[in-house]
């Protein structure tokens, strides 16, 4: 389905905004590239350039402590100009979001057909999206893969969905967590019954894609062992403790050495634990499981950035019909606003002014995580209540309790 003229206007406005800042205000770009809120050790554009520099000179970029990103990115950024890539990916994401929005049909009476322009605009003009795009965070490629996977699943395209999610997994691992709800979502949109046979064929498709991607990478850099340990090892075992907006870095600076491996395990199990719980509790709404998981990943992954937040805030409006059922949106929004303004300020006074210490920035990351988890929890409550109201329509607008 062709996009509406209004939506196309939004795309054009977004492209013009991004490209004009890329080309006319390079100072802003160079500041944003260095911000810890945008660039993490696994998504920093500066590190990508360093990897590219080594790669182009025939040195393995993984035989060092700087570059932890997938080899495919090297090839993409070797060929294409970065401004064009990031801008196009943003528009592609917005377009895929409109595809999902147009396909979305939910049985609840609260649901109304989504306005694709609204969805696209909410993604494209979200300040977090703009900042991550201008800050050239390579997480954007992962985000594109995730959204593409969901859009393909919505269209019932198994191959596309599995390829995109395999690409996401290959780039930053965590999209593997989205596999169970994604398969459910594909089955739901195809109106097919999910049997062991087609699940297995989907999983083998996924594994095959991953194997192909790894094979291609090995052919590109010829250094599989170093690539795996530097790219995925760094993401799993959090070797680089550069500050970011997440919860891991300060914890693993301060943790006692004897407990380091134990707590890395605990943190990962905690994150993985949500997948099963949400998928089992909401089998009818796999799209919302994906949305909630994206929110949780943003809070609990080792190197989160504003780019991950922009993905979550981009997909959340797909469920805007549950908005009237939420309870703490004002509080959550205020907390997010407060911490996104104070975070850079506290980082500044820790690193540059020296008038504060690491605890200032750490405290803000705690508040930020609390705000986001409030948003995730609240939207989850609203969706569950909506499901319950479908069972008991007379309870609409009444006070409820959970026991």
């Amino acid at each position, binding site marked *: 389905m062709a996009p509406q003229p209004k939506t196309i206007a939004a795309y054009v406005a977004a492209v013009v905004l991004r490209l004009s800042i890329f080309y006319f205000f390079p100072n802003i770009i160079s500041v944003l590239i*260095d911000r*810890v809120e945008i660039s993490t050790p696994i998504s920093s554009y*500066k590190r990508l350039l*360093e990897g*590219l*520099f*080594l790669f182009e000179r025939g*040195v393995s970029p993984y*035989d*060092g*402590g*700087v570059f932890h990103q997938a080899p495919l990115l090297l090839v993409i950024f070797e060929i294409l100009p970065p401004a064009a890539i990031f801008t196009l990916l943003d528009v592609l994401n917005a377009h895929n979001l409109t595809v999902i929005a147009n396909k979305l049909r939910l049985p609840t009476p609260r649901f109304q057909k989504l306005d694709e322009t609204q969805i696209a605009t909410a993604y494209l003009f979200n300040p977090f999206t703009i900042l991550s795009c201008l800050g050239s965070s390579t997480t954007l490629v992962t985000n594109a893969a995730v959204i593409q996977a969901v859009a393909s699943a919505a269209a019932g395209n198994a191959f596309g969905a599995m390829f995109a999610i395999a690409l996401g997994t290959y780039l930053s691992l965590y999209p593997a967590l989205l596999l169970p709800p994604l398969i459910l979502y594909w089955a739901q949109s195809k109106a097919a019954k999910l049997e062991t046979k087609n699940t297995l064929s989907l999983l083998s498709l996924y594994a095959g894609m991953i194997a192909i991607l790894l094979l291609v990478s090995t052919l590109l850099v010829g250094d599989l062992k170093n690539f795996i340990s530097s790219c995925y090892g760094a993401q799993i075992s959090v*070797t*680089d*403790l*550069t*500050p970011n907006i997440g*919860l891991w*870095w*300060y*914890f*693993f*600076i*301060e*943790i*006692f*050495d004897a407990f380091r491996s134990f707590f890395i395990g605990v943190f990962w199990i*905690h994150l993985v634990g949500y997948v099963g*719980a*949400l998928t089992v*509790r909401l089998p009818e709404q796999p799209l919302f499981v994906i949305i909630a998981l994206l929110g*949780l990943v943003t*809070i*609990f992954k080792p190197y989160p950035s504003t780019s991950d937040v922009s993905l979550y805030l981009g997909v959340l409006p797909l469920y805007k019909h549950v908005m009237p059922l939420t309870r703490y949106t004002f509080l959550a929004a205020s907390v997010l606003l407060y911490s996104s303004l104070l975070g850079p300020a506290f980082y500044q006074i*820790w*690193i*540059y002014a*020296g008038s504060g*210490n*690491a*605890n200032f920035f*750490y405290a803000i990351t*705690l508040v930020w*995580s*609390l705000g986001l*988890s*409030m948003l*995730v*929890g609240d939207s*989850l409550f609203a969706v*569950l*209540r909506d499901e*319950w109201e479908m069972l008991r329509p007379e*309870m609409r607008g*009444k*006070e*409820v*309790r*959970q*026991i």
Partner: protein
Amino acid sequence: MKCLVSLPEALWVLLTFVSCLSIVAATDYFERLDLTPLPLGSLLASFEFRSNESLEAYASQDFRYFPRSLGQVLQHAGTKELHLRFTTGRWDTETWGARPWDGTKEGATGVELWAWIESDTEQEAMRKWLTLNQGLSGLFCASMNFIDETRTTKPSLSFQRTGDHRNASLHLLHGVLPGKAGVASLLDGHKVFDASWQSMSVDVRPRCVSGQNCLVEIDQTIDMVLNIARAKRPREDPIPRPVQPYELICDETKPYHSQDTCYPIDALETPAWSLKDVFGRPAAGACPLAEEGGPEAKSLCLNIPHSQGVWIGAGGFEVRSPPGEAEKRCYQMIAGEPFDFDMPKTSVRTHKQIELEEELITAERTMTGHGAAKGGMRTVFTNPSATEPVNLVLFESLPWFLRPFMHTLKAQIVESEFPFEWEIIKDLYYRPAVDRRRGTQIEVVLSIPPASVVMVTYDFDKAILRYTEYPPDANRGFIVAPAVVRILDKADASGNAKAIYLRTTSLLLALPTPDFSMPYNVIILTSTVMALAFGSIFNILIRRFVAFDEVPENKIGKLVKSARLRVATLKEKITGTKADKTE
């Protein structure tokens, strides 16, 4: 520290050990002291002690002129060639001119060690290297055991073998320990080592004459720049005191000179001095082991113009070099007779000074940027020559927590009188750091055009460490080892290739620091946030919805209800009785 023998003592012990033992061919031992007065009342004293051992005797541990303790360590670690440097202070090129020994006997501030180790594999070489470091650490009482893998590099362009080796499977390893305890503390209390700059070196290398007659040579040098006025302070009263106003010598030619304004000119004058003044005692006479005749026998030399007078005591003969460019005089001492001389006071204005050799190039390395998260490294090279370009290798060994970005490496000409285009960076050898395992190694081959100032820059990120990885004084910063500059394509007078080295000063790197008092708080607070998220989400997930009025009563609810009822009745009673009273 329990170590009592300091390095200088170790050296002296070693030497006396040599001079008290057997009688052998005199050429197996050589010693020499060169004294060069420098401007502003300084004196460069260069000691050199060299001895040989035949390879067979060395292999069978029949040590005569070679220190047994060192020889055994080297043999145990399979080390074929060793270069060890202890340096402290900064050589002031602008005042003192070119470095002694062309910088080849000088190390980075702190301890620097490079060695060729015989082994079949790299792992074995690394293992032997660590053994060597630990052995030397005990021998020289310096914390060289801290030269671990992260401080070790394998330079490819900057260091060359100086010995004659037959075996090809040798691995070069280079380690620096910038500014660690060791040298400074070792020298405490020694007047001789109260120097503005000093460098000690030990070089062990095999040498073969005509491919047959192989020797193992150990060469030890101590170079220091002494401040004569400070060295002359009496031992029993070493506290410096301000000069009394009536003792001040003023430059009366200055326009502002008056009764109460003075430009002191004492710095322009070198006070009178003798060996006893500077070193605390006169020379003890010629060493019986050193050669008795010939040029090598004159073991004490003074690099001053012939026009300058020196009063020598009994116990030595003066031999002057032919008049010319580098005028010097040497003294042949008599064994067993103490020897000293008196150098009269000299002034810049009345005495011709010895011409200082100019350094081929000067290098300065600094860090740029502010803040604890990132910065830049800047090395500025100045080529003073009007005609000759200088080719050099810049060697840097960086700690892993300094993450350089080589794509930002840039060399630019800052100022130049040289009108042509010039390709500055010729070659780059780069081995990136691996976190906690290996440091960065950068070797850049540069060409500096004549009469130019060239700036080489790159950006870096500063890593944040685990809190146990910081030293106790974390906010002081980490010392980054000096860069080594090796000047290429230079030949000595006879046309042989000549090694010239210089080193920049070490740098202090400030890293972002966490709050060291926080481990428990952080564990508790982060866990609380995670527990809140986990708790609230699973709470929502596992409970079922009911309408408010359908909530079944639980025990606490019942208790609260009955308590409320009782309070109400009690209240009623009280108000009721009250009402009765008022009625």
